[in-house]
C-alpha cells in the first residue's frame, strides 16, 4: 500500500492525476468506484482519441477524393477520355507520380514517423562510421594545430528535435536571466513600475517575427568580424525576448503583492533590505514567478518553430519548412509528424515546469 501512496503522490505532483485510476486499479483491491473511475477517466478519453482519428481518416479520404476527381476531370478536359482513364488507373494503382497532394491519413503519418526513425538510424550509423574513419586523421590535424573535420551531412529528424530543444532552453535561460531580476526591481518600486510600464505594454504584444528582425539587425552587426554560427544566436535571443514578458509581469506582480503580514514580520525583525528581498519577498513570490516561467517556456516553444523557420536556423521549424518546400509525396505526412512531436514535447516541457512549481510553491494561507 505504501508504494501506491508514493506513486500517487508523484503522479499528482507531476500533474498526471489522470493516471490515478490506473494505479488504483492495479495496486491493491479494485473497488467498484475505482472501476467507474477507470471507465470515466481512461476509457472515455481513449474513445475520444479514436473519434479524433476517425474524423481525421474520414476528412482525409474526402479531401483525397476531391483532389483525385479534380485531377481526373482536368485530364479529361485537357487531353480527353484516354488520359482521364489513365489518370484514374494511375491513382488507383497508388503510383507516386500521380498521387493527389492533400491532407495525409493517420496511417500515412504513422508510416512517415517510422520512415523518419529509420532515417535517423541510417544517419546515426553514417555519422558513427564517419567518426571512426576520420578519427586518426583528426588526431593528426589537431596535433598539427588544424581544425578537426566534422560531419556535415544532413541532420536527422531526431537531431533536429535536439537542436530545437537546445535553442529553446538557451532562449528560456536568457528570458529567466533578464526577466526575473528586472521583475523584482520593478516590483519593489512603484516609481520604476510606472516608469517602465509603457515599455512593457508596448513590447509585450510585438510579434515573434518582428523580434527576430530586430535581433537580426543587431546581431548581424555585432558578429560581423567573427565567423561563428549567428543563426543559432539570433534564434535563441529572439525566443528569449519574445517569451520573457510573462515572467517579467508575473514577477513584478508577485513581488509587489507580498502579504502585508510578511512585510510586517520583516520590519519587526529589522531585516536589512537585501535580507528582506531574499528571505521574505522572493520566497513569497516564488509561486507567481513560476507561473510566469511556465507560460514563458510554452511561449518559447511555440514561437521557436516560427523563428527557426525564418532564421534558417536548424531545428524542427526549418524541418517543417524544408518539407513543405520539398513537396515529396510523404512531405505532408512528415509535417504532421512534426506537428505531433512539437505538441507532445510542448506538453512534456509544461509538465516538467509544473512539477518544479509544485515542489517549490506553498499555499498562501499556510502561515496564517
Amino acid at each position, binding site marked *: 500500500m505504501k508504494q501506491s501512496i508514493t506513486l500517487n503522490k508523484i503522479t499528482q505532483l507531476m500533474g498526471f492525476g489522470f493516471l490515478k485510476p490506473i494505479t488504483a486499479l492495479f495496486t491493491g483491491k479494485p473497488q467498484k468506484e475505482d472501476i467507474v473511475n477507470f471507465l470515466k477517466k481512461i476509457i472515455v478519453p481513449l474513445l475520444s482519441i479514436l473519434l479524433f482519428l476517425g474524423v481525421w481518416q474520414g476528412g482525409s479520404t474526402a479531401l483525397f477524393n476531391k483532389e483525385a476527381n479534380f485531377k481526373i476531370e482536368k485530364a479529361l478536359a485537357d487531353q480527353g477520355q484516354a488520359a482521364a482513364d489513365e489518370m484514374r488507373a494511375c491513382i488507383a494503382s497508388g503510383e507516386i507520380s500521380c498521387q493527389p497532394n492533400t491532407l495525409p491519413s493517420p496511417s500515412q503519418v504513422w508510416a512517415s514517423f517510422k520512415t523518419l526513425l529509420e532515417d535517423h538510424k541510417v544517419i546515426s550509423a553514417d555519422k558513427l562510421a564517419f567518426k571512426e574513419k576520420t578519427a586518426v586523421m583528426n588526431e593528426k590535424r589537431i596535433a598539427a594545430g588544424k581544425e578537426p573535420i566534422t560531419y556535415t551531412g544532413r541532420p536527422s529528424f531526431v537531431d533536429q528535435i535536439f537542436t530545437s530543444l537546445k535553442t529553446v532552453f538557451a532562449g528560456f535561460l536568457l528570458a529567466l536571466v533578464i526577466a526575473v531580476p528586472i521583475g523584482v526591481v*520593478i516590483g519593489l518600486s512603484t516609481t520604476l*513600475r510606472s516608469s517602465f*510600464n509603457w515599455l*512593457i*505594454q508596448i513590447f509585450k504584444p510585438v510579434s515573434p517575427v518582428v523580434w527576430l528582425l530586430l535581433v537580426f539587425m543587431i546581431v548581424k552587426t555585432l558578429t560581423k568580424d567573427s565567423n561563428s554560427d549567428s543563426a543559432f544566436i539570433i534564434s535563441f535571443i529572439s525566443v528569449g525576448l519574445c517569451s520573457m514578458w510573462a515572467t517579467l*509581469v508575473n514577477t*513584478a*506582480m508577485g513581488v509587489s503583492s507580498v502579504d502585508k*503580514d*510578511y512585510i*510586517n*514580520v520583516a*520590519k*519587526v*525583525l*529589522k*531585516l536589512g533590505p537585501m535580507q528582506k528581498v531574499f*528571505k*521574505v519577498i522572493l*520566497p*513569497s513570490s*516564488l509561486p507567481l514567478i513560476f507561473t510566469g516561467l511556465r507560460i514563458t517556456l510554452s511561449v518559447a516553444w511555440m514561437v521557436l518553430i516560427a523563428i527557426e523557420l525564418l532564421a534558417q536556423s536548424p531545428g524542427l521549424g526549418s524541418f517543417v519548412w524544408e518539407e513543405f518546400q520539398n513537396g515529396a509525396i510523404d512531405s505532408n505526412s512528415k509535417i504532421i509528424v512534426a506537428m505531433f512531436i512539437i505538441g507532445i514535447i510542448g506538453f512534456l516541457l509544461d509538465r516538467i515546469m509544473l512539477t518544479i512549481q509544485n515542489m517549490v510553491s*506553498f*499555499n*498562501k494561507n*499556510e*502561515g*496564517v
Partner: protein
Amino acid sequence: MAYLELKNVCKTYEDASGGTEVLSNINLTIEEGEFVAIVGFTGSGKTTLVNLINGLIKPTSGEVLFKGEPVTDTSHERGVIFQNYSLLPWLTVGQNVYMAVKEAFPKESKEKLQAIVKDYVAMVSLSPAINKRPKELSGGMRQRVAVARALAMNPEMIIMDEPLGALDALTRGNLQDEILNIWSKDKRTALLITNDVDEGIYMADRIIPLKPGPNATLGPEFTIDIERPRDKTSLNDNETYKKNRNAIIEYLMDIGNERKSVSNETYELPEISPKSFVA
C-alpha cells in the same frame, strides 16, 4: 519616568473622503515589569494601537515614548506577537525562530544561535515539530511558534495583539499559562490586547477598555489586585475578580449600546472590482 508612555496620540487614516480618525487622544503609561491588558470590541482600533507602539506606523499627532525616547521605528527591544501568527510558510519552525534570533544577536556564532532556537522551541514544547512547516501544525502550535519567535529575541517588552483570538478555549487556557510563566520568570513588561475580559483579568495587573472607533479612546482603568500565581478555577469565586469582571463588562456593554443607538443609519457598500492583472 514611565517605561512606555503615549501622550495625546491620534491616528487618522487618509482616504478619498477626507479621513477617519481611528484613535483620538490616547494617553497611556506603562511601568516597567507591569502586565497591562487593553480590551475592546473588534474593529475598535486595537491593532492600530499596537502598530503605533511597536513602531510599524507613526501617529498623526501626539507622541509615543519608549524609555523616554520617541518611537520612530521597530526595535528588537519590543517583541511583537501578531494576531495572525505571521509565520513564513516556506520556513520550518526552527528556521522561523532562527531568522529572528539571527537578527537579534548578529554577532553570536551559528552553534550558539541554534542552541537558543532549540531552547525556545523546547520552551513552547514544540521540539518534536522543529523541522515541520507551519502548514503541518495546528493553530495553537503555530501561535506557540510565534510566541517562541518573539521571545527568542529576548525583548524587554512583549506586545501581544490578540495572540489567542483564533484558538479554542482549551488551547487558549494552556497558552495563557505559558505566557504568564515566561513573563513572571524575568518580569518583562507586557502589553496584551484582547477582546476577552476574562483573559484580561486572569493575566493582567491593569485592564483598560478601549472605546470603539472611529475616534477610539481609552476608558477608565481597572486595577486587578489578585495575587499571583492566579488559579483559574478558584478565580471564579474571588470577590475582586467578580467585581472587576462585572464592572468592566457593564462598562463595555454601555458603550456598546451607546454605539448601537447612534448607528442606525444605513451604509452604502463600496464599489469593489478585482485588481487588474496588468503590471
